[in-house]
């Protein structure tokens, strides 16, 4: 099955995000912290008069917080709420064939939760990311 994917870098690794999940790609502005919320919740930011919840993808994946100056984000909509998923950098958009996760592939905790498949770009396998699974306290989409 051929799909359109956005290739991005998160925590130093290349990942593929199905574009169908993406609302927009932006540089977010100032973030207002949400005290007492989970660490993966960096805070709230305003984007075109909407309040958007910013997810520190590094914390959500359990690979350490992203730098404070990370502003590039992929906006996604989960259950009617907008989330900004911080990424290190973005590459390009292209069509790929989604393949199932190979058997026996042992991903560590965070990655395992969000990985839904693999694509192959120039012989390099990239994990397909389920953005909704990065949102804390939400069940992983089946």
């Amino acid at each position, binding site marked *: 099955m051929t799909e359109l994917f956005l290739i991005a870098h998160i925590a130093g690794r290349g990942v593929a995000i199905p574009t169908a999940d993406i609302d927009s790609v932006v540089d977010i502005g100032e973030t*207002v912290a*949400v*005290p007492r919320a989970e660490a993966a919740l960096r805070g709230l930011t305003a984007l*075109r008069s909407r*309040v958007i919840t910013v997810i520190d993808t590094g914390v959500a994946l359990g690979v350490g917080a992203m730098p404070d100056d990370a502003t590039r984000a992929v906006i996604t909509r989960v259950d009617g709420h907008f989330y900004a998923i911080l990424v290190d950098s973005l590459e390009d958009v292209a069509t790929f064939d989604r393949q199932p996760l190979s058997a026996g592939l042992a991903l560590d905790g965070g990655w395992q939760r969000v990985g839904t498949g693999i694509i192959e770009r120039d012989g390099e396998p990239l994990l397909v990311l389920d953005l909704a699974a990065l949102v804390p*306290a939400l069940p992983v989409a089946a």
Partner: protein
Amino acid sequence: MDDLLQEFVAETRETLEALSGEIVAWEADPADRPRLDAIFRFVHTVKGSCGFLDLPRLARLSHAAEDVLAAVRSGNRTPNTALVNGVLAIVDRIGEIVEAIDAGASLDDTTEDLLIAALAEDAVPAAAPGPQVSVSQQRAASRTIRLNVDLLDRMMSGMSDMVLARNELARRLRDSSIDPRTEASLERLSITVAEMRDTVTRTRMQKIEALFSPIPRMVRDTAAEVGKTVTLAIEGSDVELDREMLELLRDPLVHIIRNAIDHGIESADARRAAGKREAGRLTLSARQSGNQILIEIADDGRGIDVDRVAAKAVQAGLRSEREIASMTLAAKTDLIFEPGLSSRDVATNISGRGVGMDVVRSNIEQLGGRIQLVNTPGQGLGITIHVPLTLSIISTIIVGVGGQQFALPRQTVEEIVTVRGDAVRIDTIGDATIATVRGKRLPLVMLGHVLGLETRVAGTLAIVSTREGVFALGVDAVLDTEELVVKPAAPPVMATGLYAGQTLPDSGRPMLLLDGTGVAAAASLSFSRKVAATEQEGTVMVVPPTPALLFDDLDGRRRAIPLAMVDRVETVSTDLIRMSGGRMRLAIGGTLVPLHLAADLPQRRDIAVLRLTDGDAEIGYAIAEALDIVALPREIAPADGDGAIAGVAIIDDEPVELIDAFALFGDEVMPRIGAPLCLLQADGQGWMDSFLRPALEAAGYRCVTSIQPDQQPAIALAMDDDPVDAPVPVVRLRRQRAAQGANDTSVYRYDRAALMAAVAGTLAGRAAL
């Protein structure tokens, strides 16, 4: 009512348009269940609205169609061409009547019996009704339009963008040197944007009153129809709600209330037998709680007979006996929401045949709300509808803590006090911190600690009232008040339990709305009565000092008069002062004003005159010289006898006589006939005379301090426990600001609003006797 009718017309017209396709499809295939349901819902809604709007013709037609369709739904009748035609004829007829209502035209109703008769099972297929006269040209020009809420949403979000852009522009202009003309333009833009924003906001918001106001009439009519007496109490009409939500709540509310009257409240005989008051009681209330609006409909009727509902469910094949046996009581009660179940055996015109509650629940769930039952068999049923606050505008107080800002719903904040004042003390008891605010001990929660933010020592306390209790919330500062559009925050944010929602104020920085209950829970507060007990001793009473004008009188004495009574001090020519009509009068501004002289008029060209007013009448008081404005001490020694002197106060270590303005006015001013007469049970300090009397007279009462034989006071005002000379209702005044215990009905003497309300209320109560 006109608005409602308009709405009904527009809504019915709209549904009819949407339905026309369904009707054709049903005609083609009468066994098509979803189509049948759609048509059924339509006639059911029309029936409900008609009862509500008092449109008996439409009610009759829709009830007839509903009966037939219900029979089809339950499988008692099979739809044939005659039946389909009959129903369609009625739907068409409903459309015609609605158009006629809108155009204000009358429509001949002779064929309606035929239409209804055609629905009977044994009806002979009647000849197709003659060509219908088209009434569409009678459509009246409408002053209202119906808008898609999506459009309003887009308008709203565009508006917010506009505000943000304006703010950005203002910020940039502030940074550069700005041309005054540019500034003026920006100012105009700001005003326009603000007005626009108000308007746009209002397009979505409506007071729940719009939903509640037709209810009393409906209750009355419905109760009369079933021969019951029902008293209705409505609370919280000023809660604001999203317009869309309001519209969607209308039908469920009507259904629930009709059900309550028809099924819930028993007949007068049954109520008497059950030891209840003959008149049933229905309470309708709305309030905001956290991020939800709660609408509560409670009756004191028989409640739901759960076993009977369960038996019905088995009978209707909705549940098996085994399933019922394993269900909890609550689950069994909730069976009333199952489609096709009614606890009532006979369907009446009032409430339907079990379609009500399932429609009600699905309507409410459509709004993202839920519905809750509190069933007390024999005692009544309470139904609570919870709907989200989405897009509700709420008035908030913005507090700052640890460099961040949060909003607090204003209605939960009782009061804001600064810690610096005398009225507030903070103590540590064990490991708990207690704030004592004017004698009231409250648990203190430092918002900074709860949120894990760096915080200074609390500079300001917000007294937050939650359903569980009242606590003091320590914040760094109270910054502002703002009306905000609050939206639910994302689930991970809500999961903290501390927030009721998020908002985007004009600053463009998102802000969180705190949930007082959640904050209290996070601080593990327990509201024990001990903590909240009122501290009786050590109360510091702060009475605002009363300013008074200090002057030297004509007789050389130093005197003072409450400043509130002095309209102005004027120097007038002594030529204008004449003895006329038996007393000294001052001719000024074309009128004669009675003039009080403490001594003979000095031989001078001109003289200073205090022009005193009680808000209505005016008198002059000639003085030698005005000296200063001073604060009157609270302790005033009563004077002996002299009518014009209320007492003696010490001002700047010097005794000063306080003018009894009451006596002055009492001598000069004709009582206003017809106004209620208030007996001021004078406390010997002149306070009532000089302070209370002007306030009461300004409010249109007449006042006396002692009763003449021909006077009949309507009400008496007395201080604390002073005895009252007349057998009339008494309003007690107290010197302390805080009430002394729960049974204290007295009014703090400087609380003008409460005082006036008490006087008016007592007079009203007397009139009712």
